[in-house]
Structure formats: structure tokens, C-alpha cells
């Protein structure tokens, strides 16, 4: 059940400069429902500021715990990065609707922290290939154990360039599902280059600045293809690629 719970920081790791993981205690009821693509709203400070929580994808679940992985972007993530083992952290979740775990072979396309939800997903599907992009090798998030290709802007690992450059090498017929997650600019670039039939089977894990995170405030709007807006936090974060108005969407 979705609840606001006090968790315990079981482990903190600096995966690479400015990228951290926190392993947080969790009960059965949470873990059962924390499926791929769902997220939590984390109270980043005991004091009132920052005022609203920060959303993070469930990166992995284990017995009695789950993990989030994040990059320090601003105040909230900075505060989180200073937590140490044994600290208490209020976490609301699991929230949102995650990936529809459809049968058939999957292609995962992730940019930067966008890949944070992939480990959770890849384990539960027929994962054929993972494409990853990041600015440099140290900012690539591993999705261990699966065939993967990557591109880095500085060429420090894989191809030099953007994840879009890898798309030419994909044999689209091999895949019946795509998961796409990353910065909005990257997702727009990718979506623009996906064959129509593939776009139809693409699930996008979207990002928006969130207020509540639980569907009440209408703060997290994403332009919908039918006009109007989707709510990232409750219609999504994972939504069909075709439900987004890609021209209007400008990101957070």
C-alpha cells in the first residue's frame, strides 16, 4: 500500500563523483508493490525547506530493502548525498504507474540517470538489449548482466556521441517492446528517430517537477497528444510514447 513511512538508511555509496545510491529499509507490503518504473517521494530534509519532496525511481528491490540512485543536481539531492548509514528518511510510496510488463523481447534506452529504473525492469522482462548514453563513462549507470551498447559524449566508454547515434545499429524487428527514459531532450531526440511501429510499443518513463507526487495538485503536467496534459505522477511516470505531445513537451 502507498504510505508515508520512516525508512532507515542501510547503506550509502558514492557510485561515482556526484552519483550516489541509498539503500533503504522497507517492508513486504512496500516491496510487493514497488514494481519497475514506480517511484518514491523522499523528504530530503527534516526541516521545512526544501518544501516539497523529491521523486526517485526504485532502482532495485531486495529482501527488506530497496535502493535509489541519484545524481546531485541541487539542494535536495545535495542534502540526500550527505546522509549516512543509520539515518532516518521519510519516504512516500510506491507511487505512480510503472512499466506494463508485456511479453516479447524488450529494448531499453536510457540516458544518464534515466537508466536508474532499468535494473528493476530488466529482471522482470525478456530484456534483449540495453542502450545507454551519458556524458562520460563515470556517469553511465550499469544494468548488469544484459547485452548492452553505450555511447559517451567524451568517448570514455563505448561510442563517442549520443545514445541516438546507437539507434542505427538496432535491428528493430528483434523487439516488440521499448522502454525509454532519460532527460527530455534526449527522449525527444530518440522518439523522433524511432520507426512508427516501434513508437507504438514504446513506454516512456517521464519526468516533471512534482508537487505532491500522489495525484492531487496537478503540478506535474506533461503535454498529452490528445490535447491537455497528463499527470506525470499518477497517469505516469511510465506512459505510452504515443500519449505524449512531443512537440510541446519541453522538460523540467
Amino acid at each position, binding site marked *: 500500500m502507498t504510505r508515508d513511512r520512516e525508512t532507515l538508511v542501510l547503506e550509502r555509496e558514492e557510485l561515482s563523483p556526484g552519483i550516489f545510491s541509498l539503500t533503504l529499509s522497507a517492508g513486504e507490503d512496500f516491496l510487493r508493490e514497488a514494481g519497475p518504473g514506480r517511484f518514491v517521494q523522499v523528504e530530503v530534509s527534516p526541516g*521545512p525547506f526544501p518544501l516539497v519532496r523529491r521523486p526517485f525511481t526504485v532502482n532495485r528491490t531486495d529482501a527488506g530493502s530497496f535502493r535509489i540512485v541519484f545524481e546531485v543536481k541541487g539542494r535536495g539531492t545535495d542534502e540526500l548525498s550527505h546522509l549516512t548509514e543509520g539515518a532516518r528518511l521519510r519516504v512516500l510510496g510506491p507511487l505512480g504507474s510503472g512499466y506494463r510488463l508485456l511479453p516479447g523481447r524488450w529494448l531499453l534506452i536510457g540516458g544518464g540517470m534515466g537508466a536508474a529504473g532499468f535494473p528493476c525492469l530488466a529482471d522482470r522482462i525478456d530484456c534483449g538489449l540495453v542502450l545507454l548514453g551519458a556524458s562520460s563513462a563515470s556517469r553511465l549507470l550499469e544494468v548488469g548482466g544484459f547485452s548492452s551498447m553505450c555511447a559517451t559524449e567524451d568517448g570514455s566508454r563505448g561510442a563517442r556521441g549520443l545514445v541516438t547515434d546507437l539507434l542505427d545499429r538496432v535491428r528493430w524487428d528483434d523487439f516488440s517492446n521499448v522502454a525509454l527514459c532519460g532527460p527530455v531532450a534526449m527522449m525527444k531526440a530518440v522518439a523522433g528517430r524511432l520507426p512508427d511501429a516501434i513508437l507504438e510499443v514504446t513506454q516512456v518513463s517521464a519526468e516533471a517537477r512534482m508537487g505532491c507526487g500522489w495525484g492531487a495538485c496537478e503540478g506535474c503536467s506533461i503535454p498529452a497528444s490528445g490535447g491537455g496534459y497528463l499527470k506525470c505522477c499518477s497517469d505516469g511516470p511510465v506512459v505510452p510514447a504515443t500519449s505524449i505531445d512531443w512537440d510541446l513537451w519541453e522538460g523540467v
Partner: protein
Amino acid sequence: MTGRTWSLWNREFDSPVILASGTAGFGFELMDMGYLDGVAAVISKATTLRPRKGNPPPRIVETRFGLLNSVGLANPGVEEVVTRILPEASALPVPLIVNVAGETEQEFASVVEMLEKSPVPFGYEINVSCPNVSEGGVAFGASPSTVERVSRLVGQTSSRPFSVKLTPNEGSITESALAAQEGGAGAVTVCNTFLGMTVDWRTGMIPLERKVGGYSSPALLPLTVARVHITCQAVDIPVLASGGVSRPEDVLELLAAGASMVQVGTWLMRRPGSGAELRDGVLELLEDVSP
């Protein structure tokens, strides 16, 4: 727990905490999470005559010590509210007050007229103070004559009590409150968000499309306390306080300033369990004082 109660419109509540419009949806999500305990009433997201998409993103921008919002009254329109949402809302364990917005004086009454078809609403909150729309917003609510006419029109249409939600941004809050009372309002809500803005000085970019949004923050509590106090001096109808609540102490301070009930908005987004957290805290503090 004491047997203390608070009352509004001839109804008694075992909590003084009302959930503010726009931050609780229609209460369903909180019900699903089990967080309506401690809540006296839910005030819905604004309902307008026609569906409104709302403003383009970003709609929420956090600043150093507060939150700017520019939702722009996104809602499916009153017809959808009456036919689809309110029937489900009868399952809510607490009364629902429907927040009503409009672009013209008549439109407020038209929305209320439609809402009257539903048995569900406990009352209405007439939102003449939205900072995030061009019509029917701040300037509209700043005119006492407009406020009085809207109140009268709504009163003529409604079988239910209603509160008029005032703006702190323009005009005089006491004059508007008097006008609402004169027009037949059963309460005033003091008040809506304060106009606020942020700009990135490096780029000159203003994140909100409408530039200016509604600003809320726990740091604004003293502004609400003052406005509740002066409004209570001016009118005889109940005053519902709204703005800056994040602690049980804040609820008690607003009650001490004269409020009949106290709303929580932004902090509810942070703490969906605010209803019980605040109600329990209030009862505990009261018990400490007079055991």
C-alpha cells in the same frame, strides 16, 4: 484525546483541519492511502463551467523558502464533476466542499447551479482570488462590489452555505470580506496565495509561462495570522484560515487569531498524513495546557 470539537455551518468536527483547495484533489488519493483521518473536510480542486487544461508546465517551481504554483485551475469542468466525480465522492468519509471558479460573475452561479444537482457537496468555496488566471482572478476578487454581486448570485442559486476565498494581493481584504458577508456568504476564506515570481538572473528566464504565480510557504504564516485577525474584527461570519500551516502550533495560532477552522495546503503535498498529524498535535498541545 479530549472531546474537543470545532464547528462550521451547524456541523461539529473533531478536528479543526480542512484540506485546502488544489492540494487534495477530490480526496480520493488520500482516501486510498488511508490519510483522511483527522480531516474535518476536503475542499476540492477548483471547478469551472467548462473544462480547463490549465497552464503549461512547469506549474510548480520551488524557491529557497517556498513554492510557486501556476496550475491555472486545471479541471474537467462542472459537468464531468457532477456526473462522474461527485457520485464517487459520496464514498468519502468526510464532507466535501467544492471550490468554484469562474470568469464572469454569472459563471460562478452557473457552476453552483450545476453542482446543486448533486447531493454530495457539504458547501462551496467561491474562489474569486486565483492568482494564475486572467479572468475571474486577483483583480476580480479585489473589487468589493464584484465580490458582493458574486456572493448574492451564488446565494440565490445555492441551497448550501458557501465561503468566499479572498485575495491578499489587491484591494482590501476587510472590505472584500464585508462585501461577501453583505452578499450572503456563510464564511470567508483568508486567503489565497500571494503573487510571487522567480527569475534566473544568469539567463533572465522566468520559469512560469505566466511569469507570476501563487506563492506559499510556512514563512507566510504571520501574514495569514494578521489577515485572519483583521478580518475577524470586521465580519461576523466564520473565517477559514488558509496560508502557511505546517505544524499543530500554527493551527492553534490561527484559531487564536479568530479562525473557525484552519486549512492546510502546501504542507499537505509534503505530508499527505497532515490531517491526523495536525489534529493529533493540536489535541496533545491543548491537553498539555488544560489537562
